[in-house]
């Protein structure tokens, strides 16, 4: 939830902009952070702060792949599935993660810790195969290192 104080700040910030629409992506990121995902309520808040129709927020939110309109786990595991990671065995990494987490791509672990999603090239080809957990980058993945990462990130 965004606090009333923060909403006020954001409103003032938006009002100070020559083109308030420029703030929409930032606002969505912030609301997503606050709500866990961009729920209907969060989207409506963003629309209210930016003073735009809520459909505009929805149009943008569903355009981008890092804005979630459905609930996700506390951390999202983004596994790079683009060509440089594929070359060095991304498919196996995905298989291993699915097995370890007991979920399919797009799923969330029952404890709500992780959601598993593919992501296009994250610019870590020199340490492929790579993934991000939240905004943290991990490269040179192996089954062993994945175990360690999951252990660390779960807490």
């Amino acid at each position, binding site marked *: 939830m965004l606090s009333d104080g923060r909403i006020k700040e954001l409103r003032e910030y938006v009002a100070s902009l020559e083109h308030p*629409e420029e703030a929409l*992506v930032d606002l*969505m990121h912030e609301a997503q952070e606050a709500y866990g995902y961009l729920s209907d309520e969060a989207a409506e808040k963003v629309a209210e702060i930016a003073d735009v129709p809520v459909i505009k927020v929805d149009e943008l939110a569903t355009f981008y*792949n*890092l804005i979630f309109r459905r609930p996700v786990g506390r951390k999202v595991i983004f596994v790079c*599935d683009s060509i440089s990671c594929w*070359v060095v065995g991304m498919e196996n990494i995905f298989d291993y993660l699915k097995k370890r987490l007991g979920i399919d791509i797009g799923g969330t672990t029952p404890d709500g810790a992780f959601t598993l999603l593919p992501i296009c*090239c994250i*610019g870590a*080809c020199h340490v492929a195969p790579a993934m991000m957990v939240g905004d943290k980058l991990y490269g040179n993945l192996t089954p062993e290192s994945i175990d360690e990462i999951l252990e660390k990130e779960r807490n």
Partner: protein
Amino acid sequence: MTPDDVIKTVIDSGLRGRGGAGFPTGKKWSLTDRKTPGPRYFLVNADEMEPGTFKDRFLMERDPHQVIEGLLISGYATEAGKGYIFIRYEYSEAAQALERAIGEAKSAGFIGKDILGSGFSMEISVHRSAGRYECGEETALMNALEGRRANPRSKPPYPASKGFWMRPTTVNNAETVANIPHIIKMGASQWKSLAAYEGGAGTKLYGVSGRVKNPGLFELPTGTPLNEIIETHGGGMRDGHSFKACLPGGASTPIITPDNMDVRMDFDTVSKIGSRMGTGCVTVFDDTCCIVRAMINNIMFFVRESCGWCTPCRDGLPFVYNILQRIEAGVAEMDELAVLEENCETIYPNSFCAFAPGAVDPVRSMMRLFREEVEEHIRLRKCPMNPRPLPLSHERARG
């Protein structure tokens, strides 16, 4: 130096855009409408999302000041009072580095009003996007920055006259901009002479990834031969693997096979052999890679990232993807190859922006260079290399 002097210097330096298309930077600047009274904008495209490419990340994480200094000079040359660095959200470390550097530059008086008493003023801000490949197309990038869906715009009007908020706008890649301070400091001819050959210009960030001993990013003279990049700098193939082919500069560049390994990595030379240098970040395929499966992975990226604006891209690419999957799964018939080719050849020239041509270009090169391997799939009714079954899904789960 006047803005015109700077533009002249950049034109003389021979610098070409490092986003992948290679448009001469100085020429682009000279097209910017500087007559209409302000505001004008300079946008740095740091939405690096071309698969296999990791040069802008390095640059911004390790030396953000180079980009900011470049942006300031670029803004001065194009008389833009406001600069944006458009960076993908995943690059949080780079975004932090840039923000930090902007703060430092500000307190040193390099950003803001009347910079160092020059009369030139410029503000810079970092825009963290939310993830879409299409945002890298310059007109889509402007839409994204304006808080719209990042569909490309039709041209004309061109950004140089009516771009961001319908004002004169110049867009350059982060690496392009980072070259500017060096060009100004060294002078056009000296910078130009850094290239590996007569007629080349400056240095370039080249990357190597795949099953090589030393994957990484290297600043090398422009025009360094491909085999030197892979063998000397990338360390050659890992033990037990041999080189099969490579994508020279990202997922939208046509495949290069061993017979062209000595090609000089610059825009014109790579084009001559039917490929494109693109971003200069090479993805190496080793002998364990099925080329069909590689192309499936490649095209899946484009299917998923298509902005959905035009038909060839939105609905044509899934058709290509489906036929490739059928080939890999061993259920395709030989006559489907003609359908595949017809799809690629019709998508290529008829889409709205350069996204779809880039998507099918590697597939077209596969049909040229690896037809035998493709047909073998169909004859054997399975993939000759990869026993792992491929689910015949319409598309992958999306984020």
